[in-house]
């Protein structure tokens, strides 16, 4: 289909053309009040163009694949205004792709009625679990299947297809005039592994645990982050490891390769080939084959994440981290699955170190309260207040503040399990941090 497009581009004087095509199908089912209140199906696609011409670089996209030539012409017009830096190049990436099982054909064969029953069951089980559970504002089942194809005029042509099913549910609880809520997600390629019982039980437990939440007195405290909370911090701040951010003067990790920037207990890698990760893919947005990458080893910064352009500028090779938000985006840099090496400390032992201290179970407002340029954060949070290593009462309506780079240095102990959770790209353990600043009452 694209041979004609490449031919067309040649007639326009373009020797370096890259095409990025995405096609996706989705299904989303929402249960409410014992009925299916929303049901959405989709089938969409789009195509993104990047090209080099006469020393310029230009992008364009279209959602009508029959208008690809028009998109090429638009990209050519755009390329007149942006000088291509010398390190930009479009080319082949020889090498073997890792074999990843990202598509389960059975998912599409499971009858829709089963998926409907799953959504209805989540709401039903939650409402039946406890009289203090007032409402289940949403109970969703979702499924997407996506094909990504990257081709360029230097012979590269790679495709992969992946799918995933997910469930999400929120419970509102109330007792003595205090309203709390909790939200859980689960995901798997195998429908049989998604359990309404399991998610309803977890959601109910976590929501009810927040009843009786009190305010927290402002001040510095020792802190334990649950594995999910630590993973969220890394999800938000991992952009500081992007060579693009470094080269654009947006990351404080500039010129610090080889330096110890975190606790020696902290080892972080990126691995797009992990079977248990949710961001696995066999190649990146430029078609570069995926392979694991050591980022921090025992606190020492080993590498940034690179695409071809940033690697050329740094005199190294692409690490396979080119990304486009979608076919509409420009080529940037993103991590895939981030893997924190677990430590030795059992979870209970981490908590024993809180005297006093706070177990942080939830952080919100990450998109607004985290500053990647400075590393500072100030976030709404919830958790449990501890004294002498014993849980005292749940706490809420407080913020936790600090600086991400300092947090990594202040790691005292790491938990011994680091699972991946859906909704996050990071598999991290729970962690105890020496101190963070808390503001409440």
């Amino acid at each position: 289909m694209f041979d004609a497009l490449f031919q067309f581009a040649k007639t326009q004087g373009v020797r370096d053309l890259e095409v990025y095509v995405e096609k996706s199908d989705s299904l989303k089912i929402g249960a409410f009040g014992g009925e299916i209140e929303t049901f959405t199906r989709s089938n969409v696609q789009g195509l993104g163009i990047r090209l080099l011409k006469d020393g310029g670089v230009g992008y364009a996209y279209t959602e009508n694949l029959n208008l690809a030539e028009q998109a090429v012409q638009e990209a050519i017009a755009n390329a007149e205004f942006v000088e291509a830096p010398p390190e930009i190049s479009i080319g082949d990436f020889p090498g073997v792709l890792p074999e990843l099982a990202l598509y389960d054909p059975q998912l599409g064969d499971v009858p829709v009625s089963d998926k409907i029953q799953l959504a209805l069951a989540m709401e039903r089980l939650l409402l039946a679990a406890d009289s203090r559970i007032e409402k289940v504002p949403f109970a969703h089942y979702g499924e997407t299947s996506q094909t990504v194809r990257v081709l360029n005029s230097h012979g590269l042509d790679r495709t992969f297809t992946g799918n995933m099913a997910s469930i999400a549910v929120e419970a509102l609880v109330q007792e003595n005039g205090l309203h709390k809520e909790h939200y859980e997600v689960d995901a798997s390629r195998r429908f049989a592994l998604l359990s309404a019982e399991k998610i309803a039980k977890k959601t109910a437990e976590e929501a009810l645990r927040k009843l009786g939440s009190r305010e927290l007195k402002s001040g510095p405290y020792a802190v334990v982050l649950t594995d999910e909370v630590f993973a969220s911090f890394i999800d938000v701040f991992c952009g500081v490891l992007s060579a693009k951010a470094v080269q654009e003067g947006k990351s404080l990790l500039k010129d610090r390769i080889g330096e110890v920037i975190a606790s020696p207990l902290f080892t972080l890698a990126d691995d797009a080939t992990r079977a248990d990760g949710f961001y696995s893919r066999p190649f990146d947005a430029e078609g570069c084959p995926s392979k694991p990458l050591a980022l921090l080893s025992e606190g020492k910064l080993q590498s940034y994440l690179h695409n071809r352009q940033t690697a050329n500028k740094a005199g190294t090779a692409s690490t396979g981290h080119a990304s486009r938000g979608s076919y509409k985006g420009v080529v940037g840099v993103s991590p895939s699955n981030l893997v924190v090496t677990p430590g030795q400390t059992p979870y209970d032992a981490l908590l024993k170190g809180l005297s006093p201290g706070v177990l942080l179970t939830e952080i919100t407002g990450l998109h607004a309260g985290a500053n990647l340029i400075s590393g500072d954060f100030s976030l709404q949070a919830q958790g449990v207040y501890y004294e002498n290593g014993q849980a005292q009462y749940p706490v809420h309506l407080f913020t936790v503040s600090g600086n991400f780079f300092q947090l990594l240095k202040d790691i005292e102990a790491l938990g011994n399990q680091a699972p991946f959770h859906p909704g996050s790209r990071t598999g991290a353990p729970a962690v105890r941090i020496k101190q963070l600043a808390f503001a409440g009452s």
Partner: protein
Amino acid sequence: MTIRQLAQQPELLQQVLSQALDRGADFAEIFVEERYRSGLSFLDGRPKDATSGRDFGAGIRAFYGNNAVYSYTNDLSGEGLLQAARTVADAGKAQEPTCRVVPFRKVEAASVTQTKIHPMDVPKGSKIGLMAQCDRHARAFDPLIQQVEVNLNEWVQEILVVNSQGVWAEDVRPYTRLVVTAIAKDGQEQQTGSEGPGNGQGFEFIESLDLKAISEAAASTAVTMLKADYAPSGKMPVVIDKGFGGVIFHEACGHLLETTSVAKGASRMCGKLGEKVAHPCVTAVDDGTLADRWGSLTVDDEGRKTQKTVLIENGVLKAYMVDELGARKTGYALTGSGRRESYRYPPTSRMRNTYIAPGDSSLEEMIGSIDYGLYAKKMGGGSVSPGTGDFNFSVREAYLIRDGRIAEPVRGATLIGNGVDILTKIDMVGRDLELAEGMCGSTSGSIPTTVGQPAIRVAEIVVGGRN
């Protein structure tokens, strides 16, 4: 087919609606969208990326009582639309349709937003020239400015909405936004400042801007924050400045008044119409009719005329923001608030231009009334859980108030609280209303909205600093 071509084929659209109603649906709607978008960025003192493109698609929706089925596709051929309609009909259980399509009547509404200069008609070279000016002004402001990024995002969205009740509505909506971000660096620390004016206009908006003032304001925030100490922590009185300060109302209350959550009984503001929910000095409005504004609409994404909705009047709750499904579920009147990011989302009730109306106090009076507190000058985004009312929003540039005067600058922090409580604590409202542009995210995607207010005083709120 293009949207222009589809607009010439009402019979086809009627056929598609009938197909959607085939198995017992009692309402069907087609939303067709075409969008042209252009993005230019400027970094390191030169153009960085130039991109442009087109979105095409349609979403077909059907209601079965209070339940909605939706299907979206890029395939705008007759067969593509009929296929999407069939998908939506398949959810029904009836053997035959129970409802018929009413003849179309075009919604006549005076255009609230107009494109005087289409982004495609301006040479890219001139756009880049203006961005280069912003870069120079920001860098010239202070030698500590190490990096400046300028982004110019322009798009024109064309929509056609028809439904089985005979609604036929069309709209062409331009959006233009310029964002200047400056990074100030000093040794091992760096801080940032940003200004992002936008409007529901074409390129004429950029021509109306004072680029020097905007660029210097971004640079000034970055430099001031670099030299500032950490913000205080704990509960204290706060004066929130006009404009983007309105994010407090957007998060603490706005989302709680959308039938998106109210219709499910999942908002703390359910069942409170006619009740006192805020301090008497608070009157709050959500208005889609303001000419040329970023959050305005001639018709909403369900084809309904927009309006000015008074949400709270002198502290009393007067109205919710209501979309088609919300009206169906609650019985409240439509407010022209049905919005969606694109054809990829079914619409739901959302905000437009949301602001606290001007009051009687002056900024000096507010500052003067506080012994120790915070003056929040520039705000960032935030979020809320409507079911509990717990909200947060970030402050990007702030100053301590000591003994009734503005004192030293302090670094940003997040302010948090519970909306039900905070509304009663807004106890002084200033005179000069200003609106500011942002993007709001929710279940129907990310949409342009403005927030706004005059300066206000909040008697007590938690400030999430480090001191």
